[in-house]
């Protein structure tokens, strides 16, 4: 391993010898692993996998533009340094989970919440504490995990993210949420998972959550990633989700970032048969965010209805990357991604849909749309359909546009001032994606965040 301040070069056997020069951040990440390896939770089975994962990272480095899946989000160039691993020591009186929920999800009555500050358990309530004394924190379970959890972790670490970021998460994750929803349990109100910073200046945090939803269960999961002390964070948050036969899962993610924040999130989802999965991701701010969803249809007659809304300003960078694998037939997938880009912000959509040879009667539709509020904004859209079956209906579309002058005139001719007219049109644009959220309180909360973003000067006359 590299010495302090020495850039390490690694020779890799290729037809031509290529010399990979590690960046400062890559070197720091590898050194950080050596430093904390002994303290990371989990038995020998996990340590072996962590060690393999950091080896994989050392070989490939941070994702960069030469890696097709990361073409538009070049972390080797974008991640100048690694923030020190956040220890989870609370730096002072932060906001309580209740206060954060009241701010992010006003008017929502959660059935329960679990809160992590920099990966440290910071409290839980409701459903998360009701049934027995099982901890909702992964760190508490890694010593002797139940068989299903260990099997799922092993699977997820092996296949659910083998690129540089996935490897880093596998090497470093120290905590996360574990949730096992029994079959046929129906929970009306949302279960909220809060991931916030614990103060102490800049830091990096790696979490991995594992959720199993039993057959026929019905649940609304909400993952919130936001600031608590406004300390900049590099967050890697992986979620593994198994949806049982006939289960109905709504899965909301809310990410709010500021300029120096980096968030790479990955949802690794497997759908059983006759399941309904409704994910929605809302991202706001000026940081760098990558939201990935890798979903596998493992059973027939299931439905995916994905929505995403993002609003980015300044030099914000928001990447939505989907990998939808129709492994079996008779499933429906819908994706609607809408983004509003101001200043020099950049939006990215990559939507890969694979229809395997035996996945007949697949019905897939995808749409990505960006609204540009500034001439300096950029939207890159890359839909990819790989269809190997012959009896399928699949389509995709992508648009990027400015506000419509004719519509603006129509509103202004009715006396609506320019800034308000712009707000109305942006709201109506982004509202179409937010309308995918069926839960009234959650939908209103998301719409409220969009309005707040607009009111913060993004449609100034």
């Amino acid at each position, binding site marked *: 391993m590299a010495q302090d301040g020495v850039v390490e070069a690694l020779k890799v056997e290729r037809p031509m010898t290529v010399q990979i020069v590690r960046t400062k951040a890559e070197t720091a990440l590898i050194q950080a692993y050596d430093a904390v390896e002994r303290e990371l939770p989990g038995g020998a089975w996990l340590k072996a996998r962590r060690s393999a994962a950091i080896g994989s990272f050392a070989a490939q480095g941070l994702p960069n533009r030469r890696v097709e899946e990361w073409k538009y989000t070049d972390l080797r160039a974008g991640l100048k340094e690694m923030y020190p691993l956040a220890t989870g020591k609370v730096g002072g009186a932060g906001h309580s989970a209740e206060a954060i929920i009241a701010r992010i999800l006003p008017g929502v009555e959660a059935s329960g919440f679990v809160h992590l500050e920099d990966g440290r358990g910071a409290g839980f309530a409701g459903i998360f504490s009701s049934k027995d004394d099982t901890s909702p924190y992964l760190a508490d379970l890694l010593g002797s995990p139940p068989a299903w959890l260990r099997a799922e972790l092993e699977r997820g670490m092996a296949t659910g993210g083998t690129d540089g970021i996935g490897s880093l998460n596998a090497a470093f994750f120290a905590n996360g949420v574990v949730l096992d929803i029994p079959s046929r349990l129906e929970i009306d109100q949302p279960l909220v998972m809060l991931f916030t910073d614990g103060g102490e200046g800049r830091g990096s945090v790696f979490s991995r959550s594992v959720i199993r939803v039993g057959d026929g269960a019905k649940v609304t999961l909400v993952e919130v990633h936001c600031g608590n002390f406004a300390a900049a964070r590099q967050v890697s948050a992986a979620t593994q989700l198994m949806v049982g036969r006939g289960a109905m899962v709504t899965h909301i993610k809310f990410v709010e970032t500021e300029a120096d924040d980096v968030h790479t999130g990955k949802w690794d989802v497997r759908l059983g048969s006759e399941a309904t999965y409704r994910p929605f991701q809302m991202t706001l701010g000026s940081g760098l965010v990558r939201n990935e969803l890798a979903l596998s249809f493992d059973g027939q007659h299931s439905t995916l209805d994905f929505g995403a809304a993002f609003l980015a300003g300044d030099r914000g960078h928001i990447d939505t990357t989907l990998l939808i694998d129709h492994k079996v037939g008779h499933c429906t997938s819908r994706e609607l991604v809408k983004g509003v880009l101001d200043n020099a912000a950049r939006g990215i959509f990559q939507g890969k849909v694979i229809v395997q040879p035996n996945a007949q009667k697949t019905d897939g539709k995808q749409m990505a749309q960006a609204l540009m509020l500034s001439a300096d904004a950029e939207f890159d859209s890359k839909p990819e359909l790989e269809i190997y079956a012959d009896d399928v209906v699949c389509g995709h579309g992508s648009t990027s546009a400015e506000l419509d*002058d*004719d*519509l603006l*005139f*129509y*509103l*202004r*001719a*009715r*006396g*609506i*001032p*320019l800034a*308000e*007219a712009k707000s*109305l*049109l942006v*709201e*109506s*644009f982004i*509202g*179409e994606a937010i309308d995918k959220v069926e839960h009234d309180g959650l939908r209103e909360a998301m719409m409220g965040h969009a309005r707040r973003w607009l009111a913060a000067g993004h449609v100034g006359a």
Partner: protein
Amino acid sequence: MLEIKNLHVKLTEEDKAILKGLSLTVPKGEVHAIMGPNGSGKSTLAHVLAGRDGYDVTDGLMSWNGESLLGMEPEERAAKGVFLAFQYPMEIPGVAGLTFLRTATNAVRKKRGQPELSTPEFMKVVRDKASKLNIDIEMLKRPVNVGFSGGEKKRAEILQMAMLEPTLCVLDETDSGLDIDAMKIVSEGVNALRSPDRAMLVITHYQRLLDYIVPDRVHVLADGRIQASGGKELALELERSGYAEYKGKAA
């Protein structure tokens, strides 16, 4: 009083004059019709009155109640009482009709120094005015004009006009795309708004509408200028003889 004197207008993007010295006066309380062939500048006049971008006024004056409209933003003109009923009302996906109406109504009320309407007050007024135009309130819960028929869109325009209580109403080819029943409903809505404080400019290609909205004066617009003016009988004469005479005059 609407006063337009020697108005010259060209398109911003092209070097093409459209209005070439148009003069027109419409006193309060009167309804004037503007008739003319296609391409005579009728819609340009409507858009320039409402303040649409894309046109340059190169000469002349245009004022409402003694205040020049030139250089005024569209929303300011609306607050001053100018209302343009569009020939092709826009569809606004994602904005509910009621939200749009309430936002617009309260924006102009605020600018005019009137108190904003609370939700119950607004709903009472809108229910009343909508029912007179045969508009189902459920329709107004849907996005503005989305999926509406031609007749529904025009009735929605007249409802907006009724809500905003303008003093200068400009109706741009309101009869286009209307069947006879829809034209009757729309005309009744317009006639209900006739008042001594309000001037109306009804722009149309055909005389038919003027059977329902009977004008005080009729002007013939061709080649960017008013070529003739007269009483309502002028419209009937045009219906018989067409615009050929005025086109010839223009050339």
